[in-house]
């Protein structure tokens, strides 16, 4: 990819980064990786919706 594209401000697949969301949560006493993974997977669904509105419809 070209230079500008090498460092996107927000990664593809991301609407609300986990780093931002985790600050809103109390301390995760259980499996933090599980919470992060599922957050990122569902966040990616919204990303898919937005970008397919642009590209596919």
């Amino acid at each position, binding site marked *: 990819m070209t230079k500008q594209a090498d460092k*996107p401000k*927000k*990664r593809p697949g991301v609407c609300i980064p986990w780093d931002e969301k985790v600050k809103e949560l109390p301390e995760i006493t259980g499996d933090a990786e599980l919470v992060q993974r599922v957050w990122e997977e569902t966040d990616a669904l919204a990303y898919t919706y937005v970008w397919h*509105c642009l*590209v*596919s419809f």
Partner: protein
Amino acid sequence: MAKDTEALYAERFSRYTTALRNGRPDKVPIRPFVAEFTAKYAGYTCQEVTQDFQKAFDAACKCAADFDWDAVVGNMVYVWTGLTQAMGTKYYAAPGVEISADTGFQYLEPPEDEAFMPPEDYDALIEDPTGYLLNVWLPRISSDIVAPGEPNTERNNLALVKGGMAMMQYFSGFGVQGQRLREECGTVSAIAGILKAPLDILADKLRGYLGLCTDLMERPKKVLQACEALQPHLAHVALTSADPAKQVPITMWMHRSCVPFISFDQFDTIYWPTMKPIIETLWGEGYQVMLYAEGKWGAHLDRFAELPDASIIYHCDKDDIFEVHSKIGHKFAISGGMPNTVLAFGTPDEVRERCKAIIDGVAKDGGYIMDASAIMQNTARVENVQAMTDFTREYGVY
């Protein structure tokens, strides 16, 4: 799946994928991109297949069952107006609503001064493309979605929920449709995954073609930066919608970023540097890209020839397919070349004559897939499509 259907699927799959990789299969594969033609054949109106995607799936299956085709698209009437209406999308004319029930859906490009993205928004798009689309673009293109900070409405919330749920329902349907085509018809799902060039997206959905033309003259650096910002996201969309088995190609729908719509210099300095890396990235991940070159892109064959061997399939619309073959046929498979005008207004004899010319001139060493030049709507005559199919089956044997 019945054993004979399974065997038929395997035979067609081998034929199609061999040709995709510029190889020579047993016969010339047939892979028509049939859109509203399926409605005509199955006895539906354009409205029915555009408003009800299950009818579109049924129509595609009926065609696949009746015609001896190797591959088809699960639904080539790709814009489901049920979804766009649920979201309040402003830029489609839907058959049976804004236009007659027997006309294919139409994209409505806004006037230049009403472009969905004004030129002062370039920096916002470049800074955060996803945020811009969600917070600025979606509210502009929808009659119901509102921008953050604006008074929220029930219609806003419903439009977002309905749009998301509708998209999930529709996309999920393609998996079922692919299985149905295989099990009921022995037919391959021809493509998976979608890609458009950054510059085409800027023209199609953001600035409009006229607005982009002005930008290319007045603010070319912003245009380039915007294309670079869109690049990784468009690659990601292509990758995440592609065939998990990496057997059938991602399709890149190519619109107005070629000469004479833009200049050679604009192609070489903006379009190609922001498009070529995406194709190379996808190839690096194991995916071919079909360049569905709508109109005439032959002025840029030298650029396409820079791509790795077999990384693309070049689809001919108005290009001279024999010239395309002479310049890049040694590197890439080619599809298309049967003019839609002949399928719509010609005779079966004229169709057969054209098929013969293409098979003799382009397909003799393999690496060719029979298809119309452009997506086949309800103007294509059934007897002509039958003639194209039957002749290719009989004559296109290696």
